[in-house]
């Protein structure tokens, strides 16, 4: 026991070295990082929170709506070099453990983001459920993030990227992308981010109170098909906004492997979420040839069933949607029944879904539905499966969608 009496105080010696960890107020918490490409290298925009602005300092009271985040942009060859430089510039130590979003520019995404996945996988600081989104200019996007109804920037990102209601954003985070890419099971879609542009090219400071109208709103084409009829197929940055936060996340970036090959609008992303069971509810409008559209609130209790024939390279998809009837034309009260509505809506969903799949698989060459991953069950050993995957070409596959629509609730009024 004499040895213990010597060794235990020895083991406690580190307390004299003042190596007692980092105080929380000596750390700057990164909330997001943006990566752009320049001619000479990469431009990293590091966004970190200002806790005193968020929580109001050591006095009582909460924070104020204002600059709750700050950005610093550095040019560096790698992420860690950028963090090194930023760490030197910012007085506090940077911590990545609360970062919510990594935004990459389209240029970088075109070249491939597998290297980014490796960074995320190796680093024990970065959360595995961090989001990766694609935008035109990452630095500008982060500069324009000015949450108006949240005091906490992390909460803003979390609520935005994890929004499963409405759901015009794919629900894939870095971990999903990473596993899908390395497993070769599917090509993940990532959220698309953007900035709304000012309509009148007013270059004065668009802060706080000034409302803006988006110059790019007209670029988004309205759906002409029955599915979500009339709704514009927005990409991020195209919605009309009258609030000061110009940043938005809408639509998805399509990848083939780790390379960005195209983008989908909001309506298309909604369809993707239906096919991949990545939403909770959404409100959809259907044009059935009558004066007003049929509006349904859509739920999906079970994932769609996929019947895949690997020899014939065909897939049949059977999504099952439960709906609540929110509004309907007068004819549905008089002549038509909900059964008619179900049939019509189903045909619209099928058509729209098949168009989308055709666009993504044939034009973009992306396996967004994860057919490769779903084929795993049809092989007994991994070697056979890997051999098959090497010969998988998305454009050779044909798809048919047979959705089943059940209008379970018709609201407070009676329908047949």
């Amino acid at each position, binding site marked *: 026991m*004499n*040895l213990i009496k*010597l060794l235990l105080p020895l083991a*406690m010696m*580190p*307390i004299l070295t003042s*190596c*007692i*960890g*980092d*105080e*929380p*107020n000596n*750390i700057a*918490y990164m909330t997001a990082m943006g990566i752009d490409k320049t001619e000479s290298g990469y431009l990293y925009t590091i966004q970190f*929170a200002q*806790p*005193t602005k*968020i*929580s*109001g*300092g*050591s006095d*009582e009271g909460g*924070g104020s709506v204002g600059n709750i985040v700050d950005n610093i942009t550095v040019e560096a060859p790698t992420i860690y070099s950028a963090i090194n430089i930023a760490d030197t510039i910012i007085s506090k130590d940077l*911590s990545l*453990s*609360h970062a919510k979003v990594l935004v990459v520019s389209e240029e970088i995404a075109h070249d491939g983001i597998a290297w980014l996945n490796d960074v995320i996988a190796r680093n024990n*600081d970065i*959360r595995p459920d961090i989001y990766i989104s694609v935008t035109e200019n990452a630095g500008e996007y982060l500069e324009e993030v000015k949450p108006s109804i949240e005091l*906490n920037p*992390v*909460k803003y990102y979390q609520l935005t990227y994890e929004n499963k209601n409405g759901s015009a954003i794919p629900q894939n985070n870095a971990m999903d992308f990473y596993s899908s890419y390395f497993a070769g099971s599917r090509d993940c879609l990532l959220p698309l981010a953007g900035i709304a542009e000012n309509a009148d090219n007013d270059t004065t400071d668009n802060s706080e109170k000034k409302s803006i109208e988006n110059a790019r709103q007209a670029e988004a084409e309205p759906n002409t098909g029955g599915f979500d009829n009339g709704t514009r197929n927005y990409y991020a940055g195209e919605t009309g906004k009258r609030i000061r936060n110009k940043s938005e996340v809408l639509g998805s970036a399509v990848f083939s492997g780790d390379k960005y090959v195209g983008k989908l609008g909001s309506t298309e992303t909604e369809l993707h979420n239906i096919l991949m069971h990545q939403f909770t509810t959404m409100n959809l409008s259907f044009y059935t040839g009558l004066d007003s559209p049929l509006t349904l609130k859509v739920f999906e209790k079970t994932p769609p069933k996929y019947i895949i024939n690997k020899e014939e390279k065909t897939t049949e998809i059977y999504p099952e949607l439960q709906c609540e009837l929110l509004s309907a034309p007068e004819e549905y009260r008089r002549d038509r029944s909900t059964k008619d509505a179900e049939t019509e809506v189903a045909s619209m969903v099928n058509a729209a879904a098949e168009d989308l799949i055709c666009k993504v698989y044939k034009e973009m060459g992306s396996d967004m539905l994860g057919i490769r991953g779903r084929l795993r069950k049809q092989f007994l050993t991994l070697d056979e499966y890997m051999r098959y995957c090497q010969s998988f070409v998305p454009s050779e596959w044909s798809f048919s969608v047979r959705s089943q629509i059940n209008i379970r609730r018709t609201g407070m009024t009676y329908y047949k």
Partner: protein
Amino acid sequence: MNIVKKLFSYTPKPSSEPFVLSSQPKPEYDLRNELRIEKAYVSSDIDENRAYIRKRFRIPINNDVIMRDIALKNGKSAFILFYDGMVIGEFINDNIIQSLLELTSSDTLTDSELYKRLTANSQAAPQQDMDIIADEVNFGSCALFVDGTDTAFLFDVRGWEHRGIDKPENEQSIYGPQEAFSEMLRTNTALLRKSIKTEGLIARSCILGSKSKTKGILLYIDDIANEKLIHEAMRRLNGIKADYIMSIEQVQNLIVDKPMLFTPQLLATERPDRAARALTEGRCVFILNGSPRALIMPSGFFELTHSASDEYLAVPYVTMSRVIRLIGMVFSLLLPAIYLAMTLYHQEIIPTYLLYSISASRENVPFPSIVEMLLMDISFELIREAGLRMPSPIGSTLGIVGGLILGQAAVSAKIVSPIMIIVIAITGIGSFETADYTLGWAHRLLRLAFILVAAVYGFFGIAACIVLYSLYLGSLTTFGIPYVSPVFAFRSKSMVSPLVAIPTTRRERRPGYLRTKRPDAAPPVSRRWQIKNKGE
């Protein structure tokens, strides 16, 4: 080389401590030693007795010793000896003096007839040994010496002023008896006998302290308690060699296995019902004259966490209450350390919103977290300690001052952060949750160790300290039983449960580790009225 040898050497502890004869101190001068050339006995000559008593009790210097001469009607003379203030005067007047004066002149009674027939006192005994007579008189008895008899008579007429039976102050319970032990030994034994009305309840006495001669009683139920336990308890009690033993806490420190241990090893209770329950489980209870507490031996760690009200509530409430108490104790021990570890090393656990609050609130605080924590902890302890000594009229003022100092003012002056106040406050509340006062003290001490370790090694340090402390407790024994007992014993039928309460209907067996003579405490079906066609 010697240092190295000493570090790595190992000397197994001998099974019994070897006796070491070292130089003895010079004995003190004692008058009685002069007198006691040989053992003194009562003489048949009353004058000789009178002279001896005067010398021994230093009469008339010793002011409150009363020697009252009585002339019996049969011509004999007698005297009684007692301490004024320690006896009930009416008993002496009515039962002793009155009876003696009623003797007629023709009565020639023998010694035994004298006290059997003529002294109307319930407790009387003949005695010839002067030492015993002196001890008994010192303890409040009255001694009667009669001329012509070589026997004195001792009458138990004790009646000094004492506190009555009060409500328990530190072990309050909404349900159950509201009696507490008092300082009187006989009152305390009577309280126990009131609950356990069996002749098997044995009260073995012992005298502690060569000068104070404090009387103590070890109680146990003869047909339940393990003989070895009783023997060991008596051995330890009789083995106490000290001049003055004034309180039961002193006795506790002298009989436990490791007196320097952080955690208490015996339960001291002021509730007779708790002591009675311990007796029925097969434990021993020790009470000391002048102390309003009883020692229950043996006691384990989990018994110290139990409260008096556990016996009087239904199982779900008791379990919940124990869980809350345990959570409070864990908070009192670990919360500051966990907070420190989380904020210094493991910020990723903290939800982001909370982390910003903590970070912002600490922005203007000049001290590191550990200094802030120790500052607040010590301030809290200062206020707590001062509160014990504060006279009650201004006790509430202290609470206000303490709250102001610790709370608002410190935060406003940016000495500490608001969240630290919350942590310390919850820790303080948790320490009050601890049922046993000494266990609460133990946790307060250990908390400092945990704080230091957490500041250096974070969660890992806390985990290591938990392991070290648990293993150390696990290696202890108290009166031959392990100090910690299993926590989860599913479908247990024991009378005692560490955490989850056992329904009264299932408490069929005494704790196995007590190795009682009768392990079964109740039949398998204690609610016989439930069995069809079987009634009382």
